[in-house]
């Protein structure tokens, strides 16, 4: 029976996919493309929409609608455990994003001017946490913290978040450094500026789009993370992910729907901000 349902959904989708690779001027192709995007869109958003709708449900059930209420939002803000988990998530996200952005930006500038061989080795090491499985990064950090006897808690959680965020900052600043015209810096020095001033007034403004996107990436990576936090937060401290994980085992309440709805709106806002920012950049480039 389940296979039948799966086939009912998947077969038209595959046909639509095949048609949508055809001549884009044909009407059938246009329809197939619209249909395909619509189905994927629905698949992407139905769970989230259902989640948000049921956060306003007055009943405890997550499947049956029984009327509108803001009860779960009220309970969410009164749930001290969940609120402190949320607080931990936000604090760790901001602190780790700020630290790794500052640290990572300077690191990228340094690495960029290194000899190619050294640069290559360091970039390989930088890539490790990005390519490696989260669980391995997590447990290896636990082993390390254990060895140097740092007790698991806020410090280790922060350190591990910085550890996996920095590579993303470096990977988004590096391309901007490559695009930068190196003569600008030379010109600044020729015109009598000190290297530090040149860095502040020439290099940093040139690579600032990379820095900003690195910061946002670090922020979202930190909020999104579960696996690494699960290992490095220790037994007492918990962030939002850990709290949800624990709750799915003991049974969830629509409070979690409420918190998801809030997070979704926040993420949507951040992304809209990023996207409003982007076109401006390209306009500047075009006019320049």
């Amino acid at each position, binding site marked *: *029976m*389940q296979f039948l*349902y799966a086939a009912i959904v998947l077969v038209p989708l595959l046909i639509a996919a095949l048609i949508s*690779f055809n001549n884009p001027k044909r009407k059938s192709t246009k329809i197939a493309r619209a249909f*395909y*995007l619509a189905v*994927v869109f629905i698949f*992407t958003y*139905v*769970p*989230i929409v*259902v*989640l948000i709708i049921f956060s306003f449900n007055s009943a405890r059930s*997550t*499947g*049956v609608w029984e009327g509108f209420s803001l009860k779960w939002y009220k309970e969410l803000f009164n749930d001290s455990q969940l609120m402190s988990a949320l607080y931990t998530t936000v604090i760790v996200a901001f602190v780790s994003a700020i630290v790794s952005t500052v640290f*990572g930006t300077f*690191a990228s*500038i340094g*690495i*960029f*001017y290194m*000899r*190619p061989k050294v640069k290559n080795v360091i970039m390989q*090491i930088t890539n*490790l946490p990005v*390519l490696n*499985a989260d*669980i*391995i990064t997590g*447990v*290896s*950090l636990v*082993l*390390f913290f*254990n060895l140097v006897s740092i007790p698991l808690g806020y410090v280790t959680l922060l350190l591990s978040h910085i*550890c996996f965020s*920095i590579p*993303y900052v470096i*990977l988004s600043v590096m*391309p901007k450094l490559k695009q930068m015209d*190196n003569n600008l810096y030379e010109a600044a020095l020729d015109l009598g500026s000190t*290297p530090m001033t040149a*860095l502040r007034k020439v290099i940093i403004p040139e690579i600032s789009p990379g820095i900003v996107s690195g910061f946002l*990436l670090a922020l979202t990576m930190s*909020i*999104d993370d*579960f*696996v690494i936090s*699960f290992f490095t937060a220790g037994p007492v401290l918990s962030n939002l*992910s850990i709290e*949800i*994980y624990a709750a799915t085992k003991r049974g969830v309440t629509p409070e979690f729907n409420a918190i998801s709805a809030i*997070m979704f709106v926040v*993420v*949507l806002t*951040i*992304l809209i901000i990023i*996207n409003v920012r*982007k076109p401006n950049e390209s306009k500047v480039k075009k006019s320049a």
Partner: protein
Amino acid sequence: MPKIKREEQKKDVRERHVPSAGRTVFAYPYVVFAIVFILAPLLLIVLYSITLPKSPVSISLGEKYAVSDVVEKLDFIGYTEEAFPGEAGSYSYTENTVSVVNFRENRFEGYVVTFNDGVVYDIVELNEDGSVFDEDLASVKVLNRENGFVLTLNHFKNFFSSTVYIEVFLRSIYIAFISTVVCLLIGYPTAYILANMQSKYRDFLSVLFVLPMWMNFLLRTYAWRNLLEKSGVINSLLSAIGLPEQNLMYTQSAVILCMVYNFLPFMILPIYNTLSKLDKSMLEASHDLGANHYQTLIKVVLPNSVPGIVSGITMTFVPSITAFAVSKIMGGTESMMIGEIIEREFKYDYWFGSAISVIIMVLLLISMVFLSKYDKEGTAGGGLL
């Protein structure tokens, strides 16, 4: 070919000639950080996987031991056999007794353990001159001769000789593989359609498709639980139109569905990025030479989007093979994955847990070497940016 080489050399020289003016100093703190927090932990995990701590041997009254077992353990923690024990760190044994002597922190330690049919019958602690210090000890802990580790490959042997672990390992590969293939099958056309859209809303729409990526991973998983539960939305809809309720949760399909949902944006985004950078004149050339749209797709578009595909596969396969939350939340006991075993082992046995992690790392390394053949630009991981 030689021309390209010369160009590469030129590029190399140019890069080398960028004046560093001492700016490399900025990277030093990071280099230290990376060695301490990225490299050292990974080396540590490899070290743990091939070692075993020398734990003390404890013997209690009334318990059953074979004399040979006790002797083997004493050997293991660094004691040597002598005819009559007297030297620090020596032991001797007969058919029914084991005598151990050691000096710890300049204090004499000597024990005689007597067995009766393999059961510990009597434990006596001795003074340095051989007289009895304490006649009826309940148990004795013979401590390590020297603290430390022994090299061993036993963890790997244990892993590969256990049918349970092998089954879980193969299942993880299977689930990750299926999820990756489904992600690719759904994600490629999506990215293709989005990249070929003639609309000023193209960028905004493509952001919408990868938006859930920035939501919390666990929330995404939890969202599907709402839909699939026994009393969830899908079942209430099914029963509303008179169809039988389905058992959707705690199945392997639920795990795969959730994996696909979680990792689909990671597949769409890198493919979209490569496809939207594709040189449109290449497509025109292909059409001018008489290829139809499907031939162009297979001969031009697909080969040119390989870096995106590779990046997407890496970003889907790597996290899905080790994801332990999804299978724990959505799956039953028959869909246990390797990540769950690592998580469980790390509660009490770091050594075995490390060995499993190393096995996974080797698997990932092999698949990356295999994939990097197709990914000349090394975009894996960078696909997110």
